[in-house]
């Protein structure tokens, strides 16, 4: 693979063709804020926080680093007044959308936003439409239980026809990746309630400790993926214990 020379904040690096600018910058230890980028997923470019200033020969423009492939020599600056202004405005617009999303406050403060100058919305919860949940569910889990509906400012993440998400396997990946805590879940013994998607999933119990630990649907999806390799119905705690015990016996046997 051909190497391409590029300059980020004055540091000259050689990278593989088609590397994403955000990855290159992060490897150099340059912090680029983002709310919609995840290394496991492809570029998306929705939140507009990762803008950087790009110069190619005599052209200079702002571009989002997450979907900027490096295919020729570029000079990238991550800290110019234009970049700072753009990120601040993006954050201000996001904050006006989800004014109560506390997890965003530290980043907002860092970007110089305390209170948005715009009219704040209070009808949509904390969702900022970063699309991480939708993309994770589709691209990584392969389930596609949720997606976007509607256009423009009416866009929401929802289940098919806004009904109970019958495809949801309750893996909680959407909850884990949500940057604002908008996606909610609750385990109550034998059920996992995916509250945001209106799905109730029956839990399987660990064959050793009998504690509920995984939704039956998720267990099945993983089992199917393993194609013939048996997946033991044992919770992570018991599995670790079992593994450690096995190791211990093996060592004891060897010593004796």
């Amino acid at each position: 693979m051909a190497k391409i020379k590029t300059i980020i904040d004055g540091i000259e690096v050689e990278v593989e063709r088609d590397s994403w600018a955000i990855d290159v910058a992060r490897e150099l230890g340059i912090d680029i804020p983002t709310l919609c980028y995840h290394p496991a997923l492809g570029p998306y470019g929705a939140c507009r926080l990762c803008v950087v200033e790009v110069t190619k020969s005599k052209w200079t423009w702002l571009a989002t680093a997450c979907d900027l492939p490096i295919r020729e020599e570029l000079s990238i600056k991550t800290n110019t007044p234009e970049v700072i202004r753009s990120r601040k405005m993006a954050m201000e617009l996001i904050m006006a959308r989800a004014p109560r999303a506390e997890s965003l406050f530290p980043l907002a403060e860092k970007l110089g936003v305390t209170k948005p100058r715009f009219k704040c919305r209070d009808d949509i919860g904390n969702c900022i439409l970063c699309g991480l949940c939708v993309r994770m569910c589709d691209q990584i889990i392969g389930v596609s239980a949720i997606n976007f509906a509607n256009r423009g400012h009416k866009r929401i993440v929802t289940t098919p026809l806004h009904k109970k998400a019958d495809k949801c396997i309750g893996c909680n990946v959407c909850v884990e990746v949500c940057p604002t805590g908008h996606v909610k879940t609750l385990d109550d013994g034998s059920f996992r309630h995916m509250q945001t998607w209106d799905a109730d999933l029956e839990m399987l119990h660990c064959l050793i400790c009998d504690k509920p630990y995984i939704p039956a649907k998720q267990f099945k999806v993983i089992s199917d993926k393993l194609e013939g390799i048996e997946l033991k119905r044992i919770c992570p705690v018991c599995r670790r214990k079992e593994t450690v015990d096995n190791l211990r016996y093996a060592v004891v046997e060897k010593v004796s």
Partner: protein
Amino acid sequence: MPKLGTINELTAYAQELKAQCDPSKPCVTVCGGTGCRANHGLEVASMFEKLLKEKGVCDDIDVRTTGCHGFCAQGPLVVLVPKGVLYVSVKPTDVEEIITSSVQADEIIERLTYRLPGTKKRIAKEEEIPFYANQKRLVFAGSTKMDPTRIEDYIAVGGYSSFRKVLSGVEPEEIIDWVEKSGLRGRGGGGFQTGRKWRSCRKSQAATKYVICNGDEGDPGAFIDRSIMEGNPHSVLEGMAIGAYAIGSNHGYIYVRLEYPLAIENLQIAIEQAREHGLLGDNILGTDFSFDILISRGAGAFVCGESTALMASIEGFVGEPRAKHIHTTEKGLFGMPTNLNNVETWANIPLIIEKGWQWFAGIGSKNSKGTKVFSVVGKVRNTGLVEVPMGITLREIIYDICGGVPDNRKFKGVQTGGPSGGCLPEEKLDLQVDFDCLTEAGSMMGSGGMIVMDDRSCMVEVARYFTEFLTRESCGKCTACREGVMQMLEILDRMTTGKAEMSDIDLLEEVCLYVKENSICGLGKSAPNPTLSSLKYFRDEYLEHIEHKRCRAGICRDLTTFIISDDKCKACGKCIKSCPVEAITGQKKVTHVIDYDACISCGVCREVCPFDAVDTK
């Protein structure tokens, strides 16, 4: 009709069809464009057919329902060929008289001829009417003469001869050279060099390549592509076939919005006819070149006019754009190199091949070649479609061709390029209309929509209206467009309702500039244009809305107070009758009075007053 197996067979067939045409044979052409259809144009056409049959002269006189003539304000239109007489606003009841006096005899029916606005002068000859005389019709020339559902009509006037020419041994590279040298730029809005796009798509190595025709014309007030697809669908197919041959593609798609049922119907008929005649399909005219076209119907999203969103939509995904760091000419539809052009661009291709790139490059301005079709609507006398050479001034289009602003009102501005374009004031009337000049002035060519506004249009409201359209049409993917445009609307809403503060104007400008620079796709990048251009040219109106809570045009209801002038009111009672809330009182010979507690400032009284007695305070 048997399939044409070789290039020579097509040549012979074209000659045969041409020989059958007798230019001196009387023919009644009735405009079958959507505007005329809405005014019972088709009934006029069938009445002609019926009466000519009854009179037993249907073999001597042809009746042809053609594509749009563009003179929409005057429809339904009937043109008598070869006399060249145009009758306007024809009703089915007029048909009998037209046949007896004008077709079978040589009289002219005065009352059906076009009257020059503001005068008593009537003009019977189509070519002498300023609306037509000042145009240069190339792309549109065919629409008015042919029945769009008959491929024979198209071939008889030289259609598919350019395709024949390229298949007779022109190298694909040479075609691209011609297109490049002709200076043709994309008519969809961006104005990218068509030849360059083709070349980069040709260079991309892949087993499959696609050509797409973008017929998702979503701008309010624009109906250029619609009229071409409806009126001359074969010119689009021929252009696409030539493009596919040049690029090395075998598959084409035409993406048409569902709101254009007639365009879809006529294109479908055209494609089937072209297949039957062996002009689409495998080994076209016995050559190695195979090409076929499918129609993909859009579901009515404005954003699907954006190339990457359009491709996502054809693929069956939600129409959402992606960043174009990798060009669609490298990775487009289904991940394959794709060349997308607008309807009007494709329709220009056969002309360039037929008449030569030198001819094409000789028309237009320095960097914008050829002609451009505009749909001129709003406060002009002759609304309709206008084809003019690039570089003509706005004044020539609005005044010389379209007859200026009606009702003795004053011209205020013109919105070019639809909701993504900008609003230009009177000082810019002498601006040359081409890609670069419009962009420089803060507007854009767009797909060619032009909305003319008079002094009763409020520029803040116009900006608000377009911004509202765009908040609904934004796909909602990126923060800049989804949230930014919505906040623009929020501020504009405050301005038009008198709730804005002075600081809002700076905030509006700031967020506009942000959205322009930071959105993913063209929709967002151009969404602030109406607001930014009106802030630039009509800033005083914004200030007046904020500072004095006054809307001089009398449009923003919360900021408008109407008053009936003592001097002008003739106490005719018209306003009293039309007021929807019964807020006006008065008697004969007594100046009428508005009760401001009841008045909702709707402005109906001002509209109906014959004496201009009602005005804003």
